[in-house]
């Protein structure tokens, strides 16, 4: 089968499945909300002065988080990807830890630290705490994107620049402009994640737009108003994405993988101590300190660890297998969709926009949509099984996966495929021998991210998890309601540990399997 027909039909089938399984439930819920009586008064509430002030507050908070996250990630990415910092590769992996963990657990761990040093947080201090925590949680995401872009800037640009100017000017005038698209992408993603996040603001009693949605949904059971309010969030994310499309356009220098390019490492010289101290400080702040707080609580009650393991054993196994399946589905779909989008541009934006809508919608609304659509006698086999979770995670995280895969494909010149086809290799052989090997680091990273997000996604999981199925985040949060602090801490540590170990194992397998191709992350 030729390239065009295989990819074309695969793409069409996947888009069709996505629309049927993911978009239709959302349309159904939106339709119900739109056509129910009192819709006009709901619209008035959505656009009320108070609601718009809250929205402005959310935007301010998310902008601050995005700016700070990107600045810190830029510094860390340079230190860890472009210098010979001691143990840089290991530190890079450890710094991903905040991504593994549901934000709520970080809030719980840090609350004790805040209380110890700052006392009871109120008003503006609570908002600062929320921003601080969101920055900690999302810097790793920005770090992966910016670090990947830095890895991908070929040495040639820098070596040529060094012939004429200093290293400092090379960084400012060559390197930074090259990675500007990655920086902007990181900014947009962090913004979208933080504006949709509600558990941390709720925890600290900070009122933002998403807490209002949560309150309407959970305290007032006003699903329709919550749905309307969610779409305002989606519109904002759309506007940002539009500018991102315009800004980065055809910029080819955005990737997450090192495709065998040589990377120029900078010698830190007299800045070594400062840079290293800063990186270690960040490591202590974001990983060691919260883990230490949790460990301290666990050690106050010996034997609690075994109890936690006993409680979570089955849930861990279920979560790992489910997240792996979801990650595989996401990787496959992302590759096909990204490939088709990059090689047939005209249709690109419509499906990207659909993916963005689902990504930006708050998880609880998405969950309710899935319940209302699938909870029928005809579709009960989906609702009552693991498939509902696969659909949920795929819907939620496909946007990021496609984005990353698309960006990686931009860097693979089409001429490589043309040359292969002209040499007589069929499309499948070209795919196997040229495209996939070049994309393998990115596909693996997409798999890792999809795996991490699926393992730690809580709001959506709670809404739709099949009856009787034990899952790790559900177990941690349901027991947390009235368990001793030491048990909560033990379960949180086990959650960290499980995800981290799973990632290490996958990373080792990846490096072993693809050793020959020398595509190391």
């Amino acid at each position: 089968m030729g390239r065009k027909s295989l990819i074309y039909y695969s793409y069409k089938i996947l888009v069709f499945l996505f629309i049927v399984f993911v978009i239709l439930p959302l349309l159904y819920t939106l339709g119900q909300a739109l056509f129910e009586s009192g819709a006009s008064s709901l619209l008035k509430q959505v656009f009320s002065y108070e609601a718009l002030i809250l929205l402005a507050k959310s935007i301010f908070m998310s902008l601050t988080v995005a700016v700070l996250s990107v600045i810190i990630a830029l510094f860390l990415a340079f230190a860890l990807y472009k210098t010979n910092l001691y143990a840089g590769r290991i530190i890079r992996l450890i710094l991903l830890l905040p991504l593994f963990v549901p934000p709520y657990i970080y809030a719980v761990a840090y609350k004790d630290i805040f209380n110890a040093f700052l006392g009871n947080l109120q008003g503006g201090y609570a908002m600062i705490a929320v921003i601080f925590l969101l920055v900690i949680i999302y810097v790793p995401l920005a770090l992966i994107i910016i670090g990947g872009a830095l890895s991908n800037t070929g040495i040639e640009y820098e070596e040529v620049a060094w012939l004429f100017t200093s290293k400092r000017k090379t960084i400012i005038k060559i390197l930074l402009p090259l990675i500007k698209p990655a920086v902007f992408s990181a900014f947009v993603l962090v913004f979208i994640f933080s504006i949709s996040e509600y558990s941390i603001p709720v925890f600290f009693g900070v009122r933002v737009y998403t807490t209002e949605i949560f309150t309407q949904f959970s305290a007032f059971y006003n699903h329709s108003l919550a749905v309307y309010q969610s779409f305002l969030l989606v519109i904002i994310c759309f506007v940002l994405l539009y500018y991102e499309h315009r800004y980065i356009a055809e910029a080819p220098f955005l990737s997450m993988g090192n495709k065998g390019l040589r990377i120029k490492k900078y010698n830190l010289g007299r800045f070594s101590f400062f840079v290293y101290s800063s990186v270690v400080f960040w490591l202590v702040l974001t990983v060691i300190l919260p883990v230490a707080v949790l460990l301290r609580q666990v050690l106050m009650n010996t034997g609690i660890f075994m109890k936690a393991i006993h409680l979570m054993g089955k849930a861990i196994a279920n979560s790992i297998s489910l997240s792996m399946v979801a990650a595989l589905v996401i990787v496959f779909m992302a590759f096909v969709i990204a490939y088709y989008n990059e090689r047939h541009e005209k249709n690109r934006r419509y499906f990207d926009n659909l993916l963005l809508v689902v990504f930006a919608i708050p998880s609880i609304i998405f969950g309710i949509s899935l319940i209302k659509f699938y909870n029928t006698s005809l579709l009960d086999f989906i609702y009552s099984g693991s498939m509902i979770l696969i659909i949920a995670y795929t819907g939620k995280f496909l946007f990021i996966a496609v984005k990353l895969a698309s960006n990686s494909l931009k860097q693979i010149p089409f001429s490589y495929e043309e040359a292969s086809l002209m040499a007589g290799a069929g499309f499948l052989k070209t795919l196997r021998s040229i495209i996939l090997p070049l994309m393998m680091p990115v596909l693996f990273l997409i798999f890792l991210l999809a795996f991490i997000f699926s393992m730690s996604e809580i709001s959506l999981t709670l809404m739709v998890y099949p009856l009787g199925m034990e899952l790790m985040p559900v177990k941690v949060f349901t027991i947390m309601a009235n368990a001793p602090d030491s048990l909560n801490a033990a379960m949180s540590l086990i959650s960290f540990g499980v995800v981290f170990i799973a990632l290490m194992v996958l990373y080792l397998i990846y490096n072993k399997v693809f050793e020959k191709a020398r595509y190391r992350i």
Partner: protein
Amino acid sequence: MRYIYLLIILVLFSCNEDKKQVVVYTTVDQVFSEPVLKDFEKETGIKVKAVFDTEETKSTGVVNRIIAEKNNPHCNVFWSGDPLRAVFLKQKDLTLGFDCKEAGDIDDVFKDKDGHWYGFSARARVLIYNKDLLKDEDVPESVLDLTKEKYRGKFAIANPLFGTTTFHFAALFMTMGDEKAKEYMKKLKENNVVIATSNGDVKKRVANGELWLGLTDTDDANEALKEGAHIGIVFTDQDGMGDLIIPNTLSIIKGTKNLDVAKQLVKYLISKDTERKLAYSCAQMPLHKNVKVPPEVPSLDKIKPMNIDYEATAKKLESIQNYLKKWVESP
């Protein structure tokens, strides 16, 4: 062709409802409810599939799930930690009226008149205080005392939009009347009340000395004592309006496919034996007569309860919710 037969058999097998299972959604903390459900499984051989609520969703996750599933309910039995959710579901026409003889000796005030919910094992709202920070003579005896200057900024309540705190404030509005209740709430704000995320958060903050006092439930207070916290417990307003008693409730969801099994679970949960277990695990007070309890669990006979109608209180809540929201959000 044989694969088609296999497929048909598999489909039939998977469609064949397993009658030996019951689905229960519960807002009662998993650490307390799960052992009871596991005992039911062991004793009857009926598999229990449970959905629990979380600290994060604050007792609203399972209720929202029941509402969303209304056209094709999966839940057979709803076990709520308070009557409010049970009344709410009744108002939404999501529950079934049924006869429960096992609740015969429970006071009628703890049962729905139409049989849509039955109460058992109650908690009470209590004030907990840190004994290292507050002398006995300074301990308040009424929730109304929290407006006093000496407690300014030193006491907490959980967010009154969620959980049992919602119920408590609705009960205060019923008992005191709207005007006095609003005046009281205004004074609470002026006295810098700390709004915690949950009853568990209140317990934690009082236990660790961050605050002197907090309003919470007896099971949270009991957990704090078990964890070694140096706290005292006050059943409030014993010389006045009385203390709010919050029973667990059991409802059967309308349209449930396993009605007999659901009734069997209800019968088990409402039994004296379950009340005894909950008394030992989380200090919940039995509503049946003559149930053996540990010494630290008070008898309801010794607590003056607030005189309220639970159904009317739930309806009251609907009318004051917007006020409560504004109150929480006000500076």
